[in-house]
């Protein structure tokens, strides 16, 4: 009662607007303050050499998060029954394992990468089949394909580290620059343009978002939700395939177990990225920005010699700041 009265008076309305502004811009303000603090504490932080290393490190997370963003947009943002694909990092790791295995065996480059991509798309197709035709919830379907992918790659490479040495292409993607920009960063940018373009700038993408926003309304409007859901899983495996190219270079091969870290960081980047969208929803550019932000903060805190073990804490608090602010904005609007 008091709130409705105060909202009617000019002063109350103004106070409400200020509060709304503070909370809704809160995460961005927190990010900005942290970045400014880090750049003041460490001169090296904003040096181009360091920025390049941040971009290089964030590329795999950003590419995987773009894929997850598409699935979330098409399936709806209820994570339990809506769109989620936790199998992308495991599928990408499966691809990396196959590529590494082939490269060590001197298979031509193109064939090796093609084989990896086929496996990753296979996982995406399995997800699409399980969700659209078998009608499993995406969480269960992609959990099952995650377990299968991890098992398959561990079996395929005998659960040992595979090192790819002296491969020109692999090394170039790892260390090379083009026009002064690291190649992984360019691949990340390319993924953002292609996947973000499809999801946000095409008729197909807009319809896919409609399906995610309200499936029955989209269906009544004449769309076939199944197609868009299936397409979102295929787009996600496209991101997985691109990520595998970056990942095999970053690790100079494959160390088993990388998929666990990638999974949590992908999910973190995607949902932290929602802070960058005006409506606090998951978007592809947001996911990319989220991945870079998380890596930049991790890098900055390491530069000023914050205990490495505390970085998980910082990540956890970050995600809570973002999601709590969007939840509070929702409450204020009511």
């Amino acid at each position: 009662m008091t709130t409705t009265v105060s909202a009617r008076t000019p002063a109350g309305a103004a106070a409400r607007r200020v509060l709304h502004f503070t909370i809704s811009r809160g995460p961005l303000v927190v990010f900005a303050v942290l970045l400014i603090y880090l750049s003041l504490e460490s001169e090296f932080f904003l040096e181009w050499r360091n920025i390049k290393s941040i971009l290089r490190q964030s590329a795999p997370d950003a590419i995987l998060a773009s894929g997850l963003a598409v699935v979330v947009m098409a399936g709806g943002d209820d994570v339990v029954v809506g769109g989620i694909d936790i199998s992308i990092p495991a599928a990408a790791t499966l691809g990396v394992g196959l590529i590494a295995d082939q490269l060590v065996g001197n298979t031509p480059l193109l064939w090796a990468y093609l084989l990896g991509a086929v496996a990753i798309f296979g996982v995406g197709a399995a997800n699409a089949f399980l969700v659209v035709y078998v009608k499993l919830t995406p969480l269960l379907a992609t959990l099952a394909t995650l377990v299968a992918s991890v098992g398959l790659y561990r079996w395929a490479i005998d659960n040992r580290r595979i090192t790819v040495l002296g491969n020109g292409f692999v090394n170039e993607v790892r260390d090379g620059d083009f026009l002064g920009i690291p190649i992984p960063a360019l691949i990340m940018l390319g993924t953002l343009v292609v996947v973000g373009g499809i999801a946000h700038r095409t008729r197909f993408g807009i319809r896919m978002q409609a399906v995610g926003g309200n499936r029955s309304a989209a269906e009544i409007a004449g769309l076939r939700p199944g197609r868009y859901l299936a397409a979102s899983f295929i787009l996600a495996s496209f991101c997985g395939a691109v990520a595998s190219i970056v990942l095999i270079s970053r690790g100079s091969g494959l160390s088993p177990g990388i998929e666990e870290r990638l999974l949590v960081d992908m999910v973190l980047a995607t949902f932290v990225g929602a802070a960058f969208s005006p409506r606090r929803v998951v978007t592809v550019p947001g996911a990319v920005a989220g991945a870079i932000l998380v890596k930049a903060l991790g890098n900055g805190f390491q530069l000023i010699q914050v205990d490495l073990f505390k970085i998980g804490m910082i990540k956890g608090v970050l995600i809570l700041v973002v999601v709590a602010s969007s939840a509070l904005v929702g409450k204020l609007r009511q």
Partner: protein
Amino acid sequence: MSRRAPALALLSRYGFLAVFLGFFIFFATRSDAFLNTSNLVNILEGNAILLVAALGMTLVVASGGIDLSIGIAIDFGGWLAIVAMMDHDVAWPLAIVVGIAVGASVGVFNSFLVVWLGVSPFLATLGTFFIGGSIQQIYTSGGGQVPFREMPEGYQKLATGDTLGIPNEIIVGAIALMLFYVFLERSIHGKRIHAIGLQRSAASVAGINVRGYLWVAFIVASATASVGGIIATAGLRQFTPLAGFSYLLDAIAAVFIGASMHPQQRPNVPGTLVGVLFLGMVSNGLNLMGLDFNFRDALEGLILVGAIALAVSQRRVLGRSGASA
């Protein structure tokens, strides 16, 4: 026709059980050791921790949420119980209470985020997951094990002892199973929690104390998971930081397998038990077949995909023909 319809309906409802039985018979024919009483007891004993974790998860999923931080509750429960005994000379029964209380506090934190701030459970518990993992790393120098060789015998017996010839782990699992069954499937409170999970706004309009039940769900889930952590530390006589994570995906799989057997696809206690036993049986059976370790993991994943898909799709096909009949 009318005689066939109920049979079909029955088969469609218990499709997963048919898959379960098929695997059971398969393993029994492939390995003589599989049907040994001691092996079957092994399966039950080895999956008691997963069962209590999955029961907690069932409660949260039934209320419409998910808890990605059960691993943290598992870790904290065992860890703090050990610390209480080791560094503060607390008697072991009291140490168990301490462990469960600390585990429950993880749930309090989750409830605060979900109920009070209105954050979605997935993201709230993901935040808890990061923070809880970080706390463990900070206080164990990056994840070093915390051994406790002079563990009181009573505490150790939780995992290694028998009562009336039944391993204590199985007894703890069975008690948790019974309590959850009565609470979630047979009491008015369980009905209300299911109602909240089905349609929160409707439940609220119907006068159910939604916020109160969500608090209960998250806290009970974490407290239950911490019992699993206590058993784990008792069995190993040490605490391994971040070990709880390994139960998360299996617990989610067990709950959703169970839900896929329910007529309305609801998470439910008996279904979760079947899910846990299925996961445990497949892993045990493949183990006994003497397959290569890595190949076994791959096969386990494929069986999980195949079995769930088969059970759910066959149930849809049969369900449809049953309806037309």
